[in-house]
């Protein structure tokens, strides 16, 4: 693991990429000043109001249908890693995949479904490999303080999965089938029908994969040998039903989402390969929304009940862990304009959780209530936001959280913004941190962080054919009382508020869309540099100072290029993840990797129907890489997808 030469190389590479990013931005600024001022009016979609209206001073990113359409047969972790700077730590295809924003941990990232957290109340985190992109309409990513506008606890950020109606009198039936290397088979179905008053959307899917890829094992003998990955099968199925009712200024919706996943868990290259580890994840999620608008006021109510089952078996270790959790969320929001430029929003959020686990002493409940008030003011080129939140947890009030943001529009006519925000965000411990037997610690304090962010954003129509977006952010997180599991007084590990972490860095992205006659091209690129260091444990043997956190890459970059001419298109997507330390003293690390995926497709439009045939190659250059040490990832893989859509 000690390829030290890469350290210097990657440092130089980081500087090179930073240089190029800034270099690119200079001539583009020049173009902006002479650009076409034509304003394109976007299509207006009437939908339930959300906090997407971007309060002043915060950064959010939307991955819309134009991105999601390329990942219909994939899971969320693959799309996020190829299109954002969020690092995904994955055990491989079908294996657990968890996100990390800006040097924070998986439990500091909220995964929301239409504004309601999907994070397991037990683990405090979500597995992105269990979320098929085909079930989602778009993804809203809120970085740092922006996360507080949606929910509490997302210290790193929030990934909000949105499903939404399109008020059209139209019926669409879609079938999307895929077949790929290593026994992969996917089948997605979507039926959408309705009119301007009522919409129903039904989605169903089934996917299975053997994941029996070949890999070179150089860890178990003096000579590397080719082996086939075993005990790595995944089988997943689920459906979503959405109903939307639009009655003038009132929108009511009901959603239900079921899914179940059986997966065998492969062993590390260094461990006994036939341990018989397997996991069953099942969830049933329901949601009711009611939104009403009147004059300058709006009111929304969301009720959600979610049931999550996670059963883990390890034949070798005789472990049969059965866990069932239920969460009821009731959320009410009232928004009103105070005068011409000021908006006031009040949100009350109540969450009740119940966990029934053979790893807890008894059935365990938990209640958390939060009250959030925010004011957003935009006038002229200036904007400001102030948010205050009070959380009642375990019948005690936490120290209030806050966030304040300001923004400055550099020119009246242009979308060039300078933004800054400062936040204090708290996260209550997960149920496992508190109650797991052995080692749970009911006396844990909540984690909290001070978050500082400054960003520059531009969105410019250069010409009728070319649109450019660019952003650059610098950030700093001071996370206090971070919860870690460590050896306790006896021979098992226990949870404790053990250390502080400081994470700082920069991230930048650029996107260009070009449309000319029958040619469409889109180029996106992003780069992030993150220095996440433990700021001193309470141990006297503290060696953490100035050391990068384990499995936290300093450098990450992604790029994609999509080009289409008439009915033929191609997509190239690449993801670079720099070296990641795998020991706390930074003495060992995994080398970085650069994975390229390429696909080609052809679309056919016939009367009343549409079809799309897509062939792709993942890991084009067949590189040998690992996201987690000793868990090999697949080499070159092929897939073929066929989408058939009937429209009436």
């Amino acid at each position, binding site marked *: 693991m000690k390829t030290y030469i890469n350290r210097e190389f990657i440092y130089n590479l980081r500087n090179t990429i930073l240089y190029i990013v800034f270099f690119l931005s200079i001539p583009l600024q020049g173009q902006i000043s002479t650009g076409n001022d034509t304003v394109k009016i976007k299509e207006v979609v009437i939908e339930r109001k959300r906090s997407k209206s971007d309060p002043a001073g915060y950064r959010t990113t939307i991955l819309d249908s134009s991105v999601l359409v390329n990942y219909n047969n994939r899971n969320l972790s693959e799309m996020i890693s190829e299109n954002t700077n969020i690092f995904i730590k994955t055990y491989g295809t079908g294996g657990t995949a968890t996100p990390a924003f800006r040097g924070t941990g998986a439990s500091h990232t909220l995964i929301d479904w239409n504004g309601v957290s999907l994070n397991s109340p037990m683990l405090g985190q979500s597995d992105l490999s269990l979320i098929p992109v085909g079930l989602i309409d778009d993804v809203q990513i809120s970085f740092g303080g922006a996360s507080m506008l949606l929910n509490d606890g997302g210290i790193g950020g929030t990934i909000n999965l949105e499903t939404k109606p399109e008020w059209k009198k139209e019926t669409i039936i879609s079938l999307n089938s895929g077949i790929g290397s290593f026994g992969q088979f996917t089948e997605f179905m979507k039926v959408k029908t309705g009119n301007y008053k009522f919409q129903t959307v039904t989605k169903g899917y089934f996917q299975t994969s053997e994941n029996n890829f070949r890999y070179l094992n150089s860890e178990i003998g003096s000579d590397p040998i080719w082996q086939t990955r075993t005990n790595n099968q995944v089988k997943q199925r689920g459906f979503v039903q959405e109903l939307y009712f639009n009655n003038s200024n009132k929108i009511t919706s009901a959603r239900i989402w079921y899914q179940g996943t059986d997966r065998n868990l492969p062993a*590390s*290259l260094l461990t006994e390969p036939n341990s018989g580890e397997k996991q069953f994840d099942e969830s049933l999620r329901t949601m009711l929304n009611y939104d009403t608008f009147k004059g300058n006021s709006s009111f929304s109510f969301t009720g959600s009940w979610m049931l999550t089952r996670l059963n883990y078996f390890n034949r070798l270790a005789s472990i049969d862990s059965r866990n069932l959790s239920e969460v009821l969320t009731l959320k009410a929001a009232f928004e009103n304009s105070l005068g011409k430029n000021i908006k006031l929003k009040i949100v009350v959020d109540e969450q009740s959780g119940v966990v029934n686990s053979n790893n807890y002493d008894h059935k365990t409940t938990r209640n958390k209530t939060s009250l959030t008030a925010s004011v957003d003011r935009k006038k002229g080129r200036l904007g400001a936001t102030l948010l205050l939140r009070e959380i009642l947890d375990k019948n005690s009030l936490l120290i209030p959280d806050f966030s304040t943001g300001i923004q400055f529009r550099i020119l009246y006519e242009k979308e060039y913004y300078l933004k800054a925000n400062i936040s204090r965000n708290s996260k209550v411990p997960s149920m496992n941190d508190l109650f797991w037997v052995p080692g749970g610690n009911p006396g844990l304090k909540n984690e909290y962080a001070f978050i500082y962010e400054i960003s520059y954003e531009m969105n410019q129509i250069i010409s009728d054919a070319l649109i450019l977006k660019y952003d650059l952010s610098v950030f700093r997180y001071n996370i206090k009382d971070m919860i870690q599991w460590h*050896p306790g007084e006896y021979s*098992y590990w226990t949870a404790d508020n053990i250390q502080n972490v400081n994470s700082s860095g920069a991230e930048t992205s650029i996107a260009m869309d070009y449309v000319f006659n029958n040619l469409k091209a889109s180029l996106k690129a992003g780069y992030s540099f993150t220095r996440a260091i433990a700021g001193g444990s309470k141990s006297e043997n503290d060696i953490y100072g100035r050391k990068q956190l384990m499995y936290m890459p300093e450098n990450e970059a992604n790029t994609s290029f999509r080009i289409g001419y008439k009915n033929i298109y191609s997509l190239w997507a690449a993801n670079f993840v720099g070296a990641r330390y*795998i020991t*706390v003293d930074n003495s060992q690390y995994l080398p970085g990797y650069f994975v390229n995926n390429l696909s080609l497709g052809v679309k056919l439009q016939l009367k009343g129907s549409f079809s799309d045939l897509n062939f792709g190659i993942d890991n084009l250059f067949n590189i040998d890489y690992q996201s987690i040490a000793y868990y090999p990832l697949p080499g070159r893989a092929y897939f073929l997808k066929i989408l058939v859509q009937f429209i009436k």
Partner: protein
Amino acid sequence: MKNLVKIAILLFIVSSCTKTPDTQNINFSFGGGVFVINEGNFRGGNGSLSFYSYDSSKIFNDLFNSVNGRPLGDVPNSMAIKGDKAYIVVNNSGKIEIIDQATLQSKATISGLISPRNISFVNDYKAYISSLYSDSVTIINLTDNSISGYINLRRTSESIATAGNKVFISNWTSGKEIMVINSANDRVVDSIEVGVEPESMAFDKYGMLWVLCNGGYARQNYAELIAINTATNSIVKTFTFPTKEASPSCLKTDGTGQTLYYIDNGIRQMDINSSDLPNAPFILQESGQYFYKIGINPVNNDVFVTDAVDFVQQGNLLLYTGGGSLISKLKAGIIPGSMCFKIRINS
């Protein structure tokens, strides 16, 4: 564009680089000393082998990887030497790495074991391997390095102590028995009920088997130190620890078999004829230290202690005189655990 192409090529090179063995430790001392098994983190694959050399008073780390160009495995647990070979039991890799005890070069690997923990040579041709998860003890054929059979104990196993044809095996996890096996026919011949969770065992100078029972993983019961007459398989002495909070572990004897040592809030020593448990440690565990395992030099009674610190960073090997004075503190691998003396040191 040219720059972008360069970057793409460079990134591809980065992603393609391979691991190379670290050779800086290969020239370790070939004299006497003690091997330290660094367990590493569970599933972290960062277990390693260290060697403390009496000749140079230095520690040499990551030796297995340095010599053999590959990691030792996941959670190596123990090591034993027989002749010119050393046997390293790698728990979560389910294997035994057999190396040359002088050069450390890999000689063979026995795989397919279920969560192996400790090894004991019952004669020149046969060894028993205990198991944390399996109900059976595995029999190893030392001649061809293969698994030659199993002895079904109907319970898991941990510590192994061999006296002639009698092999005593403790049932540690949730257990309270010592199983007795006749190594001539590999049959269970007796069982002895002791305290809760017999964790470690050692023979004294009279051939008495001392068993340290830690009282359960969460100390639900009082820990006990028990002496067993190996001729009659009967308990002759029982010392009960004064509080449930006591968490003794890692019982050892010195080279003469006169003194017992164990970890309990520091290192304690006790004469085998003592009528009471020691009421204070003779080596104190300081704040920030986590005494994990001990080893007693069979010749000069030097006390080696592994300090796991916080179980994630590199731990320390602490060397004390028999009187408890600190001689040296040396950086070992992650979670330094059990030790294996290479030769008897004359000093």
